[in-house]
């Protein structure tokens, strides 16, 4: 797989179809492959890598890369293609400047426990590439995943238990902002968390409220646009299950406003910039589950 990809990338470079390739560069350790731009075949041969530790979603890097001169080739895993579509829909990526190569993905391994699949891959939502110019390997199917299981489990707890659970998780937050920086949906040029007046711009969380504020707002800002790629949880140095916040929004949106998968197409209107007259009243929140 890796060999085919390197050959194809070198071919594209030499033919002049693209002038750079966005892929994964081998890091110091086997598990820390980082996104990188390659411009010559020798560099590709020596450093390009594609294995089960290439978790990084390259779509986000296209926001900057597609704005530059010339065409960039990019390797996209199935879940990356959803983010890719979503960013095109938001006019963040210039599609004409991108040559997208879909690559087969069999799930990424957890860097903490290298035998195991990452949580997001164990509950993979889709192996299907929703956007590509060419494909290396095979494109799979949309899977019937069990990704909402944990959300459901939390919903069935009592209010106190949920509070304790989230207090325990969120209090570990060191406000490194990695979840924001890596998120393909977080592409605002001016971010609320960089605004000193927002009440959540500190690097060090001053008290529990700030952690709550940060995480609620972060999840809310991507609600309806989050493709559930799971990058936020992958990069969290404290292993906070941030995807559970995003999935709660996705689950609510699915239940209240109809099934919606962000990034599946480029033409659909997101659920939070849309409405119907018969939408559920906010009181549905009080009518269900435990309190």
């Amino acid at each position, binding site marked *: 797989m890796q060999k085919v990809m390197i050959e194809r990338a070198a071919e594209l470079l030499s033919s002049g179809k693209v002038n750079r390739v966005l892929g994964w560069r081998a890091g110091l350790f086997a598990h820390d492959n980082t996104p990188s731009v390659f411009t010559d075949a020798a560099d590709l041969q020596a450093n390009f890598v594609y294995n089960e530790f290439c978790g990084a979603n390259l779509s986000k890097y296209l926001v900057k890369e597609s704005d530059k001169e010339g065409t960039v080739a990019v390797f996209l895993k199935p879940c990356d293609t959803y983010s890719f579509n979503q960013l095109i829909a938001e006019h963040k990526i210039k599609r004409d400047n991108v040559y997208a190569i879909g690559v087969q993905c069999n799930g990424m391994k957890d860097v903490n426990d290298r035998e195991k699949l990452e949580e997001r891959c164990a509950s993979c939502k889709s192996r299907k590439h929703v956007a590509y110019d060419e494909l290396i390997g095979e494109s799979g199917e949309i899977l019937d995943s069990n990704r909402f299981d944990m959300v459901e489990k*939390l*919903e069935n707890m009592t*209010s*106190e*238990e*949920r*509070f*304790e*659970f*989230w*207090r325990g998780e969120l209090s570990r937050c060191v406000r490194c902002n990695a979840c924001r920086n890596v998120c393909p949906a977080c592409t605002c040029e001016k971010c*609320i968390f960089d605004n000193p007046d*927002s*009440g959540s711009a500190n690097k060090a969380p*001053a*008290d*529990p*409220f*700030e952690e*709550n*504020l940060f995480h*609620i*707002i972060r*999840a*809310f800002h991507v*609600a309806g646009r989050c493709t559930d790629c799971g990058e936020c949880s992958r990069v969290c140095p404290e292993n906070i299950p941030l995807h559970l*916040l995003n999935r*709660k*929004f996705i689950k*609510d*949106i699915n239940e*209240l*406003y109809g099934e919606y998968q962000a990034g599946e197409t480029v033409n659909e209107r997101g*659920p*939070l*910039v*849309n*409405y*119907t*007259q018969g*939408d*559920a*009243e*906010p*009181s*549905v*929140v*009080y009518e269900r*589950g435990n*309190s």
Partner: protein
Amino acid sequence: MQMNDNTFRPKIVAFCCNWCSYAGADLAGTNRLNYPADVKIIRVPCSCRVNPTFVLRAFGRGADGVIICGCHPGDCHYTSGNYYARRRMTLLFSMLDYLGIERERTRVEWVSAAEGAKFAQTMNSFVETVTKLGKNKRLEDLRCKK
């Protein structure tokens, strides 16, 4: 009304849209309907002006309950503002509930300019509910406390 100093009085923030609910509050006033003084009204141009951060910030700065009042769906002065607000607030309140913050502390109510009585009644019942819940401990900003 005589109040014992130890009685808990909640702080309620009510975001009222300029065109319906704020006028409804006015009507409640001119009709001399009673509703608790614990309710602090913030006038917003439309219920969809209420950013989720406003709600969280209100809680952080010591509010015990937050209520958002807007025009009835279909009656928005700006045609569709309250429809967007409805989706947004539903998701936000569901998220707060998910994080273990008591769901009764938040509410959305549609009050028209002619519904002074409904305004007073809504505020009375909301204040009563929040009073029962007591102080907002789960979502307070300790920095804002004296």
